[in-house]
């Protein structure tokens, strides 16, 4: 079998599964060994193992297999669960990720050695084993199962506990158990099973199994009959409740609340036994059906579509001269085209979750390396963003988050001294509002120290001392984004490397966005990034210069003006425009582009552009239109061209360059 054609989807899906495992590890550490978490981890690990084995990547399959073993032991001995085990699991995930990376880069597993991590995983299994005292199921169902029964009893219901025994010659006990689960399904909810299907697969010696059913007790006989009809099931009997609950005694009654049961309680709100049966391969929750489509294919589609839009515009022109029927068809085509366009735009949108999912792990590691203590909270994971914008934002967010952990939050002792909770909070949120997506990184740390920022800026010669005295806080905070500025008292590995916030601002602005910072002394700092919903389509003003049309993104335009002689002043022989309470430098675009000024007789057509707090008056021959344009890259060959961020194709098929206003300052 030629498997190479499946490599891409193997890589993508394995990446997803590793990310899921990563998340679940953190959940495991946070919430303890809960059934749901472990079941989900099993599913992800199982899929990973199956896929890598099928692809012939045995090092990966082997490591995943041992990881499953470790998970199995955690599940079977939940009371022995030590959070430190999570470190080992995470290390295993890292090793798998590195393994996957090598497969992607080199196509082989050559030279991969997992022996160190395999030893650590084996150690997990052994310590758990040696601590284990109550492993055998021969003496009746284990504590966890009894706890579950006790729990049901406390909720006021009386479960029917059934013991079944497998025939000694039965080789596929897991399958039989599945059949039992199916058979009893129609009678009522199955609240607990011991051992569950996966455990049974691993344990060939098990001879009995227990089920706790929530059924009317008069159905008991019919239920038992149904079970006994399954071949290789020798007996099925009802077990007295007292024998289970009293045997487990007082201790479990008390502990039941705190401990998490290890036996998988199959029937939770949304998981029925039938789902459980399918779980190992498909995941327990019902998901939307999705298709994996390479991004390049969507981009190609988008290209074709924008040509369609152009053709449609031409058709509209022709139809004006044509008869009624032609106009009608043209209108219909126009409607269909625009809904197609909406559809493709929608396809390019992805929930920010795919960007955010790697952060919890990063923040966890940061706590350890930095000696900070904090909760990391993420909200708005479902907020959708253009994929290209999102890809570009990853590094900037990493920087802001590290910054918040390193500089934003005070060390735990300092927090306690200041009467704040020892544990800080770092919040990453996303939300959409009015055509923009907002990303916020907030900490509840000390806030920005105005004086320290000022002193540092003065020391670095970024501002002069006298002029800075009357600055507003916002102006001072703005200094943080100045190039080469870092107030960290000690430069650490994590942040404060001087490439800091100015790089973040540069990235955000290159995407047509904006970043600002809000801070309250003693209460914390919030960085707010505002981004356009999409980069592919943007509103723009079309201006004419000579015979060519240029587009200026509306986001950079403040207003349009016609300048007459009395509006113009001159400073050092450079023309300036008196605008509001200040003056704005005048840039003649014809002059700037072709050394052919377009300033002739007054009035001059001017577009007042803004970039942050700075303004420019661009003089052009004519202002043509304002409309939505499709942003197309200029490509690598022209990549370094200054003053233009891309190009678009106009209704008549000509190309118009998109002016990058920032480059004109």
């Amino acid at each position, binding site marked *: 079998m030629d498997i190479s054609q499946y490599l891409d989807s193997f890589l993508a899906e394995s990446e997803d599964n590793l990310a899921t495992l990563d998340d679940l590890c953190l959940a495991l550490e946070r919430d303890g060994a809960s059934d749901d978490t472990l079941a989900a981890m099993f599913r992800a690990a199982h899929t990973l193992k199956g896929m890598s084995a099928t692809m012939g990547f045995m090092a990966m399959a082997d490591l995943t297999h041992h990881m499953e073993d470790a998970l199995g032991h955690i599940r079977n001995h939940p009371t022995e669960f030590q959070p430190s085990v999570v470190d080992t699991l995470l290390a295993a995930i890292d090793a798998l990720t590195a393994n996957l990376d090598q497969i992607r880069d080199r196509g082989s597993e050559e030279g991969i050695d997992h022996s160190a991590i395999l030893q650590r995983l084996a150690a997990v299994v052994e310590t758990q084993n040696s601590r284990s005292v109550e492993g055998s199921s021969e003496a009746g169902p284990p504590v966890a199962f009894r706890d579950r029964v006790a729990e049901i009893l406390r909720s006021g219901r009386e479960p029917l506990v059934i013991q079944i025994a497998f025939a000694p010659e039965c080789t596929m006990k897991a399958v039989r158990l599945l059949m039992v689960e199916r058979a009893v399904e129609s009678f009522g909810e199955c609240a607990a099973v011991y051992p569950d299907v996966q455990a049974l697969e691993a344990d060939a010696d098990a001879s009995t199994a227990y089920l706790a059913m929530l059924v009317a007790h008069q159905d008991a006989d019919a239920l038992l009959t149904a079970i006994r009809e399954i071949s290789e099931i020798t007996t099925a009997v009802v077990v007295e409740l007292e024998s289970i609950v009293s045997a487990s005694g007082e201790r479990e009654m008390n502990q039941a609340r705190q401990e998490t049961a290890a036996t998988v309680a199959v029937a939770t709100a949304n998981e029925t036994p039938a789902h459980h049966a399918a779980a190992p391969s498909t995941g327990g929750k019902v998901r939307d059906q999705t298709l994996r489509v390479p991004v390049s294919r969507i981009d190609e589609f988008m290209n074709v579509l*924008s040509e369609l839009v152009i053709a449609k515009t031409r058709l509209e022109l022709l139809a004006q001269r044509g008869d009624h029927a032609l106009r009608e068809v043209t209108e219909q085509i126009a409607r269909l085209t625009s809904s197609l366009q909406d559809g493709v735009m929608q396809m390019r949108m992805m929930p920010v979750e795919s960007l955010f999912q790697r952060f919890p792990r990063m923040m966890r590691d940061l706590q350890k390396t930095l000696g900070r203590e904090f909760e990391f909270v993420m909200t708005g994971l479902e907020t959708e963003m253009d994929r290209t914008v999102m890809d570009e934002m990853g590094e900037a967010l990493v920087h802001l988050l590290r910054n918040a952990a390193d500089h934003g939050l005070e060390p735990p002792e300092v927090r306690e001294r200041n009467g704040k909770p020892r544990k800080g909070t770092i919040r990453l949120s996303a939300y959409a509002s009015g055509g923009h997506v907002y990303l916020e990184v907030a900490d509840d740390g000390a806030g920005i120290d105005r004086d320290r920022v000022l002193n540092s800026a003065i020391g670095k010669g970024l501002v002069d001392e006298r002029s800075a005295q009357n600055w507003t806080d916002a102006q001072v905070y703005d200094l943080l984004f100045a190039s080469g500025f870092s107030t960290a008292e000690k430069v650490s590995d994590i942040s404060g490397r001087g490439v800091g916030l100015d790089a973040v601002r540069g990235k955000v602005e290159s995407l047509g966005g904006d970043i600002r910072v809000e801070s309250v002394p003693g209460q914390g700092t919030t960085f707010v990034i505002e981004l356009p919903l999409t980069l592919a389509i943007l509103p723009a003003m079309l201006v004419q210069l000579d015979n060519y049309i240029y587009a200026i993104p509306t986001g950079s335009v403040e207003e349009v003006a016609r300048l007459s002689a009395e509006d113009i002043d001159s400073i050092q022989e450079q023309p300036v425009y008196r605008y509001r309470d200040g003056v704005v430098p005048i840039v003649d675009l014809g002059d700037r582009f072709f050394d052919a000024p377009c300033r002739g007789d007054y009035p001059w057509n001017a577009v007042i552009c803004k970039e942050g707090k700075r303004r420019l008056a661009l003089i052009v021959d004519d202002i043509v239109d304002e409309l939505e344009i499709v942003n197309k890259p200029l*490509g*690598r*060959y*022209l*990549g*370094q*061209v200054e003053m233009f961020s891309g190009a678009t194709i106009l209704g008549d098929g000509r190309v118009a360059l998109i002016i990058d206003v920032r480059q004109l300052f």
Partner: protein
Amino acid sequence: MAQQYVVMKMGKELYGAPVMQVVSVERMMDITPVPRTLSFIKGVVNLRGTVTPVIDLRERVGLSATERLDSDAMRIVIVEVDTMLVGMIVDSVEDVVTVDESQVSAPPEVVGGLRAVYLHGVAQLDERLLVLLNLNRILSDVEVDQLREVEKRVHG
């Protein structure tokens, strides 16, 4: 080993571009100039929805940009180099020929204004010389960056 070349004419000279790298041959179309870039970069065109840069091959290979006689014969040869599409304006496109590697001789140090590194070699075609271009070199973006630097220094 034999290779096929698209034969392009500029002035009296013939230049060859490997057929494998030629995507299409287009009639002249509206070119939108890109201000403040290298002089041989003529601008960008709309190639079926893709914004594609266009260079004047004549200027790029160092021929004088003399008056073109028959502008109706002019073509834009679209080539793909390193996943990058670039159009080259030529006086005309003549033919596609097969050239055996044995017919190719090393280029003389300077052909026209073109340094030998930009050439794959020179082949004898009937009575005429066919200059085989090394498109990867001619259209390398690194090269363009360097040229841009030089131009900057010259013009300040």
